[in-house]
C-alpha cells in the first residue's frame, strides 16, 4: 500500500462528517470562484471588447466602465472575507472533527 503518512485515513475518509466537509468546501469554493470569474470576466471583457458602450452608458454621475472598475476592485476583498469567515466558522470545526479520526497505523 502506497502512502506517505504514518496514520490511516480510512476511518476519516468514510465518516459522514468528512462527506459533509467535502461537499460544503466544494460548494463554497465553486460558488465564490464562479462569482469572481463572472465579475472579473465582465469587467475585462467589456472594457476591452465593448469599451465604447461601457464608457458611454452612465449610472448617475459614474460611467458603467468605472462602476465595473470599482466592483472588480472591491470583489476580491469581499470574496476573501466571506471565504475566510465561512472557513473559520463552518469548515474548520468539521475539519477538526475529521482530523481526530486520523489514527496512527500499527507498525
Amino acid at each position, binding site marked *: 500500500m502506497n502512502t506517505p503518512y504514518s*496514520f490511516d485515513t480510512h476511518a476519516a475518509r468514510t465518516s459522514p462528517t468528512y462527506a459533509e466537509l467535502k461537499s460544503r468546501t466544494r460548494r463554497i469554493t465553486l460558488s465564490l470562484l464562479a462569482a469572481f470569474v463572472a465579475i472579473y470576466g465582465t469587467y*475585462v471583457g467589456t472594457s476591452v471588447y465593448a469599451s465604447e458602450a461601457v464608457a458611454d452608458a452612465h449610472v448617475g454621475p459614474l460611467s458603467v466602465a468605472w462602476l465595473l472598475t470599482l466592483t472588480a476592485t472591491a470583489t476580491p476583498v469581499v470574496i476573501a472575507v466571506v471565504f475566510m469567515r465561512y472557513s*473559520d466558522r463552518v469548515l474548520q470545526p468539521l475539519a477538526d472533527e475529521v482530523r481526530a479520526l486520523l489514527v496512527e497505523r500499527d507498525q
Partner: protein
Amino acid sequence: MDDNSSLLNFLVFAAFVLTTLIIVFRVGRRSASQEEFFTASGGFSGRKNGFALAGDFLSAAAFLGITGAVALNGYDSYLYAIGFLVGWLVALLLVAQRLRNTGRLTMADAICLRLNERPMRVAAGVSTLAVTFFYLLAQMAGAGGLVALLLDVPSRAGQSLVIAGVGLVMIVYVLVGGMRGTTIVQILKAVLLLSTCAVLAIWVLSRFSLSIPGMLDAAVASAGPEGAALLEPGKVYGTALTRLDFISLALALALGTAGLPHILMRFYTVPDARQARRSAAWAIGLICLFSVFVLVLGLGAASIVGPEKILGSVSGPNSAGPLLAFELGGRWMLAIVCAVAFATILAVVAGLLITSAASFAHDIYERVIRRRHQVGDQEVVRVARWAVVAIGLLGIGGGIVANGQNVAFLVALAFAVAASANLPTLILTMYWKRFTTTGALWSMYGGLISSVVLIVFSPAVSGKPINPATGKSASMIQGVDFHWFPLDNPGIVSIPLAFALGIVASLLTRDDKSREVFNDLEVVGLVGAPPQTPFEVVGPAAGEPTREALAK
C-alpha cells in the same frame, strides 16, 4: 535633481538598509534547521504573513511602473493593475490551505507525495529556478534604471556598482536572517510602501479639496486635447491584436500568482491552514488598498505633474511617482519615496533568493543528487547558503547585463511560466484522482518550454516597429526581426496547452501510487495532519525500500 537631493535620497535609503540589517542580525539564527532557514519554522501569524506576502509581491515595477502607466494611460492601465489582485483569489480559494496541509518546505513537496519523486523534483526544481530567475533578473535590471533616476548616477559603471551593492546587501540579508529575516524585511517594506502611498494619496486629494471629480477634471485638462480618453477604456487596448494580447496577459496574471514559487513558499511560514487562509486574505486586502492608492497617485501625477514632464524625464513613465512626490513634498518626500522604492526591490529579491536556494538545496541536492545518502539538515542548509551566494551573484551579473533593457516582458514571462508550468500541475495534483507522473511531467515541461519559446519568438523580443520619437524599437533586441508569434504574452496558448498535456498524458498512462495516495492526500489537504505527525517520511526518497517498510 541636484546633488543635494541625490545625497539625501541616498542617506534615507542607507538608514533603511542599516535598520533592516540590524533587525536581520538580531533575528538570524546561526545554526538553523531547514525548517527554520526556509520557513522560519512556520512561526508567523496569518496577519504578519499577509503583510509579508504583500511585501514579497509588490515589486518596484508595481509601484513605479503602474503609477506611471496610470498617469499616461489612465483607465486601461488600471485594468492591468487589477490583474495582479485577482490572481490572489485563486491562491486563496484553491491552493493556500491544501498546500499548507500537504507540503513542508517547497512547492515540490506538495506535488511529490503522489507522484514519482525523482523526476518531479527535477521538473519542479527547474521550473522554480526558471521562474525565480526571470523575476530576479527583472528586479535587478529595474534597480539599474531606478539608480539612474533616484541617485542621479548617469554612468553605466556607476549603475553597475550600485546594482552589485544592492545585490550584496540582499545576499547578506538572506544568509544571516534566513526566512525569518527575509519575512521581517518584507513586513517592514509593506508597511512603509503602503503608508507612503496612503500619505501621498491623501496629499494629492487634498490638493483638490478632497474632491475626486476635481482631480479627474484636472487630469483630463492637463492631458491636452485627447485628455478625455484617459478616463475611458480603449486607449491602450484599441486594436484586435492588443486586445487579444491583454486577454492573454490577464489570464497569465490571474493564474500565475498562485504558481509563483516565492509566493507559494510563504504559505509554509504559518503554523496551520487557518493562518494560511488568513494570510492570503490579508494580502488581498493590502494589495487591493495598494491598487486604489496607485490609481489616485497615477491620476494625481497626470494632473499635478502632467504627461509632458513625465515623458521628458530621464526614466520616462517610471518617474511619475517620484516626480509627484517632489511636487507635493519637495526634497524630503522625494527622498522617502526613493528609499521606499529601493526597499521594495530589496524585499522582493530577498524572497526570490531564499526560494530559489531552498528549491536547489532541498529539491535538487537533498532529494535527487544525494538521495541515496542520509543528508543532514545542517548540510542542506549549508548548500542552501552557497546557493544564495551563487544565485545572488548570477542575478547581479544578469542585472548588470540587462540594465537599461525593457524588462517588463521578464515579469510577464515569469507570470506566464508560473501559470503554464506550475499551476496546472499543482491544481491537477490537488484535485484530480486520475493524474499521473507522466501527465505532470508533460504538463510542467510542456508549459515551461512553450511559454519560453513563444516569448522568444514574440514581438517583445524582436521585430516591433521603430518608434520615430526615440529611433528605437520597443523590442528587447534591436535591428533584427525573427518573431512569428503575434502576441507579447504567451499565456493564452501555453496555459491551456499545459492543462491539455497534463490531462491527455494522464489518461494515456497508469499510475497506481498516484491514485492510492490521492485518497490520503485529499483528506489531509482538507483537514491537516494530526499534531506530532511528520508531513512526510524523513530519510531516503520515494521508491527506496525503507519507505515501503515504514508503510506496512
